[in-house]
């Protein structure tokens, strides 16, 4: 076998023919490949443009659908039903002094003389895709209710409280900031039962105790 191969390559005529033929094939296919690459770039550009146009068409359709859906909602449902639709996909969260409120917590110890309770209403990206923004915003519990109706905060004499609302694209946050606590002070928060239920909290009344020692013990 080896001697046959050697005989073939040593034959100048065979060798030259082989080299020429192979060179022609390599050159021809390389040139074709380069040409095809150029065509490929053009076709890829066309595909990207087709996808862009398709997305634009879908966005247009979505905008039309959403506008009609908004009209349907306002024209077909009463206020409680609209509120129900709007609040269905909204998530709520409560944090106390920066820590999320867990479902089995009813007493929390604070190591500082202020208590910051944040009620967050998160529409979520999905809600905004499912419903017109106006419906979601109109039915926001933070907009529809007074702060004291959502979380009732009870605190002792000498303490002060202020509320603030922060708007962000995917929701709103309502803050309750109680300050002026003295060691041993207790701040009680009573969360609206509907909100507590939607957060699956086992207790809607939470006591926050200002205990200076918490900080000392931790250190």
């Amino acid at each position: 076998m080896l001697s046959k191969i050697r005989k073939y390559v040593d034959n100048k005529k065979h060798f030259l023919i082989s080299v020429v033929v192979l060179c022609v094939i390599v050159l021809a296919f390389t040139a074709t490949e380069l040409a095809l690459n150029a065509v490929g770039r053009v076709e890829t550009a066309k595909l990207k443009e087709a996808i862009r146009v398709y997305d634009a068409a879908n966005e247009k359709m979505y905008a039309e659908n959403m506008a009609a859906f908004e009209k349907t909602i306002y024209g077909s449902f009463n206020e409680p039903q609209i509120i129900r639709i709007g609040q269905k996909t909204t998530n709520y969260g409560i944090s106390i002094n920066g820590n999320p409120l867990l479902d089995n917590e009813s007493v929390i110890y604070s190591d500082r003389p202020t208590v910051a309770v944040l009620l967050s209403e998160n529409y979520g990206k999905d809600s905004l895709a499912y419903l017109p923004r106006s419906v979601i915003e109109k039915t926001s519990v933070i907009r529809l209710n007074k702060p004291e109706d959502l979380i009732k905060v009870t605190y002792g004499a000498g303490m002060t409280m202020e509320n603030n609302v922060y708007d962000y694209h995917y929701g709103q946050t309502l803050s309750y900031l109680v300050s002026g606590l003295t060691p041993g002070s207790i701040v009680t928060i009573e969360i609206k039962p509907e909100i507590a239920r939607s957060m699956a909290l086992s207790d809607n009344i939470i006591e926050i105790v200002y205990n200076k020692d918490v900080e000392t013990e931790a250190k």
Partner: protein
Amino acid sequence: MKKDRDAKPSETQENLAETSYGNDYSSDKSKAALSLSILRFILIVALAIGAITAIIFVFVSIKTNARTVETTKDFQIKTQNVYYDLDNNLEIKNEEFASERLFMFFSRDEVYTITNSLWKYELLLNDTPVDKSTSALTISPGDTFSIRETFEETLLPAGFLNVGKVTRGDEKDRVQNHFGLNKKMYSLTEKREGNTTLYTTEGLELVSGEKFNLLISVQFQERLGFEHDVIEVTVR
């Protein structure tokens, strides 16, 4: 020897190389010839690999380009369809969109509660509503019964609105299933006009003196507000 002298240089080279075919690599000439053979072989193999690679690349590129062209066409067709829907089927698409989303927020029972008040049903005897408290009717040969189904004008999508019908939007159920004339042969023809659909008995043969029962389903009885779900019918 004479033969060697007359031979062309290339042939001499070949002959030189041939001397080592018997695997005698001891002389320098034989070694040089072997090296040359190896180099030639490597060159051919390298070119062959290059050729195969180039061919494979070309075929892959052809396939990739064809797929890209096909995908582009698919997207163009999809885009055309979207624009076609925007121009011609926008109302249907809006309804589908609204219906699909509304079902995310309400259970089927809730949808029924919301929409059933938008549908009104009446049982008619010769175009005259039958009294809700009726338990017995006397009719004449040639008389017809009809059910008039009317819905209020609303922006609600059809898929959502239809859940409020007596059939609860079940595509397999029909109004005809909620009405029956015991032991009688007839059919209920359907005639739609605007927001009203009239289902009328056809081919009902009534003989003087005969008696039969008009039966309505419990759901239909509830929708009609009737006191009885069985009405005794006597033909004069």
